[in-house]
């Protein structure tokens, strides 16, 4: 029994020696960034990615490192990744907008009906986790109030008002939550990483080039075949791109 314990502790110390703790890697990468060694900083952040899922701060910092190296495609990719986790973070928004100004493809998005625009803005205002927690809190509150209504004859006068208000807020947030979960699980988006990317009419390198996309362009993935993805642009253009040329969000 003691022998096993010794072995385990030895193994644990060996692992900790071989792989640096993620926090210290993060610190080291930040220091590299501060001393303007952006390529090394990027490599360090990439190392964190290999450890597993990382927080939006890592993606954001990766985006910054790539931006400083003028790898705008990768910068957009990482900012978008960060934005998925923290849609309300203003820094990510700012840097993403700035990076977009450097992109070659200014894809004209067909203008939405203005209500739709606000709808989308509202839908993406909170992160999925925030929405989930809000929904669960409201849900519990709602049930509590129903119980009160059921068992107590004598209730404060504003009780009903509060109940209707909570029902309304709950309905809205539950809708947003369900819509977001649905979109996340069905809609797959990607960013063009390479400088210039020929979009083919068929999943075949010899096929005709339908159009050209430059780094940083956002596309929606419709289907996949072997080494190829069928993509769709916001403005409706469809074509095939090699898997290696895009980064899945």
């Amino acid at each position, binding site marked *: 029994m003691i022998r096993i314990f010794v072995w385990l502790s030895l193994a644990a110390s060996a692992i900790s020696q071989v792989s640096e703790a*993620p*926090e210290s890697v*993060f610190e080291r990468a*930040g220091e590299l*960034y501060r001393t303007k060694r952006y390529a090394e900083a990027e490599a360090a952040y990439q190392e*964190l990615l290999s*450890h*597993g*899922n*990382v*927080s939006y*701060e*890592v993606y*954001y*910092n990766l985006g*910054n*490192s790539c*931006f*400083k190296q*003028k790898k705008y495609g990768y910068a957009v990719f990482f900012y978008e990744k960060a934005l998925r986790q923290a849609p309300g973070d203003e*820094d990510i928004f*700012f*840097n993403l*907008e*700035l*990076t977009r*100004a*450097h992109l*070659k493809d200014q894809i004209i998005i067909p203008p939405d009906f203005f209500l739709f625009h606000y709808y989308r803005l509202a839908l993406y205002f909170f992160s*999925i*986790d925030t929405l*989930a*927690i809000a929904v*669960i809190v409201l*849900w*519990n509150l709602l*049930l*509590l109030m*129903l*119980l009160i209504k*059921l*068992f107590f004859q004598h209730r404060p006068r504003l009780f009903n008002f509060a109940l209707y208000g909570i029902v309304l807020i709950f309905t809205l947030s539950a809708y947003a*939550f369900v819509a977001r*979960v649905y979109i996340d699980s069905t809609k797959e988006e990607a960013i063009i990483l390479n*400088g*210039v990317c020929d979009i083919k009419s068929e999943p075949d390198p010899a096929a005709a080039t339908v159009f*050209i996309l*430059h780094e940083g362009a956002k596309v929606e993935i419709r289907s996949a075949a072997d080494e190829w993805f069928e993509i769709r642009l916001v403005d409706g253009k469809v074509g095939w791109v090699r898997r290696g040329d895009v980064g899945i969000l």
Partner: protein
Amino acid sequence: MKTYSFFFIINFYFAAALSGQTIRCEATVDRTTIEAGETFTLSVEVSGDDVDVRGIPELPALKGIELLYPNPGESTSIQIINGRKSESKSFQFFLRASQTGRWTIPPIKVHNAGTEYQTQPITIEVVGKNSSGNAGSAFGSEADVFFAGVASKKEAYVGEQVMVEFRIYSRVPVTQYSPTKVPNFPGFWAEEFPLKEPIQAERVTINGKTYSSYTIKRMAVFPTHSGSLKIEPAEIECELRIPRKNRGGLFDDFFTPFNDPFGEVVTKKFLSDTIRIRVNELPSQGKPSDFSGLVGTFDVKTTVDKTQLKTGEAVLYRVEIYGVGNIKSVDAPENPFNEEFEKYPVKSSDEILKNGNVVSGKKIFEFVAIPRTSRMYEIPGYTVSYFNPETKKYEFQSSPSHTLTIEQGSGMTAGGSLSKEEVALIAKDIRFIKTSAENLMITRGPVYTRWWFILLWLGPLGLTVVAFVYQRYQAQQNADIVKLKYRKASPMAKKRLNQAEKLMKAQKLDTFYTEVAKTLTGLIADKLGIPEAGLMTDTLVSMLREKKIDEQLIGDYITCLQLCDQARFSFDRNVPEKVESVYERIRETIFNMDKAL
């Protein structure tokens, strides 16, 4: 009107713009084919930026040539070009060819500022005097002059070069000429060759007669379409000097016709013949698709000014097509840069060289482009295809391709390709990195996939459902009791009334009134499903009114209750008649109430 002077007594050689510090020393003769007995000029010219010739150049011993005057004519010229002085000094020796044959003038030594220079040797040919020329009758008449246009080829391909020369053939001195009608060349691209000044005479023998031939116009023409093309005749006006005929034989040798100042001057017009050239279409067999009409021999050279560059930096791609033939027919190559480059219109320039009898030259196309994206870019090679009239085949030459390595330049230099608005944005920088992270590594999935989320969702729901069901069950239970009470209300009232009747008859009035009052309230309470204890009269009345009971009945009921209360709590209870009537009244009210509810 252009007037050309044919013969110079003294040749002035103007110093050409000289470059470099060296001294040049040259010997030239005015012509290399000379008839025996004719005089000619030998010029020795020293040129450079520091000409200081001491004495006269030493003329070596000459064979077959004699020096006419020991002292040469001298001339000096000074030129200042761009602030630099250049001088030239020349000496003219007058010589006479005395014997036929090929003779060489050996190198002539010249001393300039203490250094000895040598000229190149010159070979001249002295031809024998024409036999007929000696016959006085044939010597020098107007019939001895004619004018002709000569084409080097009678048959040519479209685009193939043909030389056309207009010549004056003459056996008498021509002092002046002027063209009165210049032919044009419809269907040709014509390039005029410059003439060497002064115009040199060539000795040609036509039909056994020796003529001096003066080429006054040389053209290279390139037919632009097939068919039988013709060049219209040209016309010139010549001033001829016809020597006097009856001269003594002795003087003939002495006064050569060319130096005779006493000839009779005649002006006459001459017309050349029409030149016809048959122009053939180029063979269609093996014609390359990109053939642009080049005929001759060509080659191509392509260069880029740099192969490593950054975005926003200009690159120059140069295509140089050179060779012999109709170089001007080259079409501009396709722009080799694609949409990722900022392109500028092609710049082309050409240079036509006329050497000897051929037109050669080069055409240069320059493409300037500024890359916008970083990548490896390959400029494909350029192929020039042409028809070679010698081999009668289409041939081509290709240049290798070039690979450009384009790196990302700094954003500021690429400003030219960005709009103003974008530049304004770029001037700003991104925000700084996040220095700390709350949870660096996310070990769990999103909140909604965690167990406690599901628990908090379904748990309270379950609890609520349970609570609701329980509440419902309770209500059901209560409702059942009420129903039972309602059903039992009338029998209970009858029972109580019977009880009360017995008490009344037994004169137990206290208990009687209590029983009657219980009957009254108990019935209403059971009927309405409310607890009997603590039932207030006011509440009862309002509840009865809710049930829409007749006001009269309610009034009776209240009166009965009050009667009971009065009887129970007052001392006036010993009136039996009253008890009987009260009982009757209460009985009736209870009966009516039972009916109404």
